[in-house]
């Protein structure tokens, strides 16, 4: 095997070699794709598919039926009463109701339903009112909101998330000057953060990450802690390392300090950076915010069987050929890990690996395989490991190219479930391919595949947690989190904004928790005191008026009463967002207890608690 000359000799060579191998390769190598060609395979516009189909009918039906039941049973009931929590209202269907759904008349909901089921562009229901300010996005030179800049220590631009090139170049020059000034001045200080305030509070934050050759800058208009921004920058930096390796980076810059790194990065690198930044901004992966992974919910016995199959398949591998084996489900969800004793993979490394699968490999043909060198920055920034990727066959149901729905609930493109084998040896492609084939065959035979290829999340209705709209539970022991299925109509970025605010209710700006355990309730209500219904007047009347005003927007904006809870303890973190109008604190607390109890009870199903150790 003379393939894929050492990565250290240069990436360009590497890709070329991969590509050429593809040309001269035999039957087996035909399926090996080069990563450089991926960019052309995946033009950016295809990345932003609109939500093409309603993915899960459960929730919509929920709304549908419950509204139906409600309106027929209790026509005369005031809306407020219906929304306000009462002990009897524990049937999950009712709790799942959103106020907006109530404001629709039946016909429109039916329309909505059929519409959403059959058409590509439907207007999503706004289940979540948005109490947060909107950033000004109309600035031509530089969209506001969020920005990432990467430049070399010599001030040469590497990457900017958005903004016009010339404009951003100027900014990078300023960044370079400022950072240098402090480094060279008497105290040899290092610029960490800049925070700007207006009279109301924090406007923007700028966080700098000063690495030896690279300077990264994050700017945010959002409620993000300094620590979180640092983590985001670290992720971007880790990506650079994972594609270049630290050793190569050092070599390039030691040769020439004002080296222009852009010339060394490929189109797909920039594309990947774009994807990473975008995912960060949209909060696509709550795991990045929480520093945790999400797993596929599986019965313990099934997980055990997967482990057994994985271990059996690698029995014939020569010693040292395999370092890690990972099965990954859509949505960056982990199914199983196979690892040598005493070794674990850093969460950041896994996150990068998963986004690589998501961003680069999803447009490959499902029977293609990929063999590619990847640097795992937290494992060893100086060297490369070699990754073998293979998509898992879709199981019993569906045709070859049908992996259920094309998009996930968060609007992410649905990634095919992937088997990843990681080797320290660059020549082990065939051995690993063999092992992978055995593994997929065995998984198929055992009937486990459907659990992996079409994993479902539990829904909020599975847990006796009235009033709760959605939650995220992070187990500190496993560094993993779980969350229930979101409905296709959920405004994901608003939901994530709620979560980031809830998070800031238990952490201070430096990312340290306020105390060992913290319990925080946060409530956003849009009715100011003057606007509240006069005490003499019945709530019912006013709300009736609102409904008659036939302005849904008005109702949504004025009737906001969102309740959230954050619970930080030494063993878990729980964040939950309640339904609009649910304000019974005791009930919410009870729900929160139920959730934590439920998660604890089912922890072996929810979390990957042990891995296949060899």
């Amino acid at each position: 095997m003379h393939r894929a000359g050492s990565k250290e000799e240069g990436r360009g060579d590497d890709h070329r070699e991969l590509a050429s191998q593809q040309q001269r390769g035999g039957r087996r190598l035909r399926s090996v794709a080069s990563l450089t060609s991926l960019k052309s395979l995946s033009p950016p516009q295809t990345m932003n598919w609109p939500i093409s189909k309603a993915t899960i009918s459960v929730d919509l039906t929920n709304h549908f039926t419950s509204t139906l039941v409600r309106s027929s049973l209790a026509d005369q009931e005031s809306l407020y009463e219906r929304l306000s929590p009462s002990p009897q209202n524990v049937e999950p269907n009712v709790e799942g109701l959103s106020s907006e759904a109530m404001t629709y008349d039946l016909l429109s909901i039916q329309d909505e339903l059929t519409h959403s089921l059959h058409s590509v562009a439907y207007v999503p229901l706004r289940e979540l009112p948005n109490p947060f300010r909107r950033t000004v996005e109309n600035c031509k030179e530089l969209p506001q909101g969020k920005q990432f800049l990467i430049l070399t220590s010599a001030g040469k631009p590497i990457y900017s998330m958005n903004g016009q090139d010339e404009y951003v170049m100027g900014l990078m020059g300023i960044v370079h000057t400022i950072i240098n000034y402090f480094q060279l001045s008497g105290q040899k200080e290092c610029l960490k953060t800049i925070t700007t305030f207006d009279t109301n509070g924090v406007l923007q934050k700028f966080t700098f990450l000063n690495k030896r050759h690279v300077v990264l800058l994050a700017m945010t208009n959002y409620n993000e802690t300094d620590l979180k921004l640092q983590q985001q920058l670290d992720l971007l930096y880790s990506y650079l390392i994972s594609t270049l390796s630290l050793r190569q980076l050092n070599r390039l810059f030691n040769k020439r300090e004002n080296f222009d790194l852009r010339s060394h990065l490929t189109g797909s690198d920039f594309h990947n950076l774009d994807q990473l930044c975008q995912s960060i901004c949209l909060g696509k992966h709550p795991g990045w915010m929480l520093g945790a992974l999400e797993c596929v919910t599986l019965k313990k016995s099934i997980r055990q069987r997967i482990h057994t199959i994985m271990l059996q398949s690698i029995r014939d591998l020569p010693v040292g050929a395999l370092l890690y084996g990972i099965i990954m489900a859509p949505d960056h969800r982990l199914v199983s890990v196979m690892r040598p004793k005493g070794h674990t993979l850093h969460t950041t490394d896994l996150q990068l690996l998963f986004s690589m699968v998501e961003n680069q490999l999803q447009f490959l043909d499902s029977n293609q395989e990929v063999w590619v060198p990847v640097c795992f920055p937290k494992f060893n920034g100086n060297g490369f490991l070699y990754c073998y990727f293979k998509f898992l066959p879709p199981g019993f149901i569906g045709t070859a190219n049908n992996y259920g729905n094309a998009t996930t609930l968060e609007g992410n493109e649905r990634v095919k479930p992937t088997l990843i084998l990681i080797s320290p040896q660059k020549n082990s492609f065939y051995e690993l391919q063999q092992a992978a084939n055995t593994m997929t065959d065995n998984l198929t035979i055992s009937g486990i595949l459907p659990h992996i290829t079409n994993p479902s999340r539990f829904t909020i209705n599975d847990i006796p947690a009235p009033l709760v709209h959605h939650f995220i539970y992070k187990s500190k022991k496993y560094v993993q989190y779980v969350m229930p299925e979101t409905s296709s109509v959920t405004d994901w970025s608003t939901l994530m904004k709620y979560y980031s605010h809830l998070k800031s209710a238990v952490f201070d700006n430096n990312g340290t928790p306020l105390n060992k355990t913290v319990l925080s309730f946060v409530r956003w209500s849009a009715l100011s005191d003057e606007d509240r219904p006069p005490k003499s007047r019945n709530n019912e009347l006013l709300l009736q008026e609102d409904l008659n005003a036939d302005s849904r927007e008005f109702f949504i904006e004025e009737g906001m009463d969102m309740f959230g809870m954050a619970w930080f303890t030494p063993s878990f973190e729980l964040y939950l967002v309640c339904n609009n109008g649910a304000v019974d604190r005791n009930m919410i607390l009870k729900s929160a207890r139920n959730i934590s109890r439920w998660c604890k009870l089912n922890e072996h199903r929810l979390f990957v608690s042990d891995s296949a150790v060899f």
Partner: protein
Amino acid sequence: MDFIAVYNPKLYTLETDAWRQLLLYHSFQEHSEPIPLNEKLSLIGIIQGIWQFTHNFNVPTASSKVKYIDTHLGNGRLITVELEPDYFITFGINDGNQYPCSYYIRELCQSYSFFRMHFGPMSSFKERNELTNRLNEYLVMYWYDLNLIPEAIYSSNFANIFWHDSFKVSELKTSNSAWETSIKNNILLDDDTFLGLKDICVYKLPRDGHRHPKKYGLVRNFTTNFESLSTLSNWLYHLDRIFDSALSSHVLAGHVHLLRQGTREEDPTIDVPETTMGTKIWHNATLPISMTYDAINEVGNLTGINTFMNGLNTIANGLGSITNKIGWPNTSTEPGGRNRSDSTTHGFLISPLSLDILPESYHFRRFQLQFSSLNTQPEWYKLLFWHFKDYLCVLIFNEDFTKIWDPSYLESLDSKLYKSISILENSVIDTTVDTEGFAYAVLDKESHRIQTSLPMIQCHAEEAAGDTSQMPLKLVVNGIDDALQYLTSNTINSNAWTSIASIYSPSISSEVTTKPLQKDASDQKNSSNLWKLGLSRLTSFPSREAQDKSSKGTSTANGDSFLCTLSLDKLLELNIDLCKIYMGIQNSEYRRDSVKEEKLVKLSNGVLCYISNSSSEVVVILKNWFTDERFSKKNNCNIGTGKFEETILISSLGNDVRSWWDNRNNQD
């Protein structure tokens, strides 16, 4: 602290003129080499760069505009505030980044607003040098004092820190408003005064703000559109905070500053107290100096010419003998034998009645104040200060009002004020019966008024708790040090000090706070030494140390809230916790104009904190859930009808908070 710099980048046009932009650069590094101008300028340039850079990412709107920038370096930090258009102040500090920058922003903004009150806006200065001089004179001194007691920065409670453009009001309950009517009818609407007197602000500045924070603050003023009220009030509170009491002529005249003891060799002032007093805390030892003139005023009244006056005359080098302007209505008829409770506890602190030899600021303060929001131009006013016990009245006169130079007018004013404030004093309802199980702070965003029962954390108490024999600081009265030195070195003897010591004996109970005058008077009777008179005069305001002692001694002390019994360390810790929680609100993106954000945070260390932030007010309530019965025994009684929606989070704080809240709303 590293340095403080004021600059205006628009002040220069040519490259060679670059130095012109730098209006002030003061380094706090005492023994370091002077910093070359070039270095200063490049630092300013970089800060300007940062300022401009951040603006690239922000489209300024009417509602939000960058006001402050906090730059974190590895260890140090730079905080920049735009004071006026194009005028910036930058503060460099090396604090390991452990405190939220709001601590410093508050000081920066306050130092500027006080400066502006004293000298007018920076843009009004025509001469660059003049501005620099004034900045040196005021701003640098402000920070110099703070630099000596940095605890003062950190020990402010969070309401003062985050709401620095607002001011605390006193929640004094009175049985009737007769005193207000009295002031209105007899003083404000009086024929003599009507044209000249713009406003009277009545403050209560009790010495036990630590334990009864509710009473502390502005009782009321009489003009509705007094825009500068918060600046004026905060200035008084600031004096009270730094110099231990604002109720002193010297402090109000701006002539008192802190001095690190032993740093100046040419300053051999009183070592006597230190050696003889031993463990006496420093401000006890030095207060006599700052109070000397007050004492002389009265001594002069009582006994006519005496040795001290003679001494003063000698020092004053024939600047004129003691004037006879001083004449208190009550005492003129019965000199020497007057009623003590009247004489010692009221009178003008700053007025033209002060001795002629004293600088102008002892006669009146000239401040630039704004009385109407429509009229954009603030105007100059002359302010006189008058006190009755721990009430302070600030009388604001139009600048051209000449009557204040007429002693008889002032005399009548004094008696009228005395009458009114006496009525106030008598009508006060003592509400300190029960210690509340919670503490609160409420900010009214429109009127900038703060109501709070958070204890005022006192920086001086910390020092008192430390090794007092090595107290490094003392108060000095600028400009008239020599006189004071002469007086004190000649007259203070250990005898006098021991008599004070007896007053401050640990046996002191909280009675001292409520009835200081009796102590005072009794001491007076026994005293044949005139200096004792002067000194005992001081003790009408029991020192904070005495306060601490008494509060420690009586475990069931009646503070305004449970926090008042906490130790200082705990309070500071709590304060930082609170600041962190409050920072969360500052970070939040909720739409501040229309959305109300509420937060209830329960920490495992017992802190239960509720914050609600709407467009009209901010409410912060603090509780200790360890001690709250409701959390130990399950309480299911919940939520009445009616106001269920509004108070959902507040009601979960317990019934005591709930009833306080309801009362409060009913008052409105």
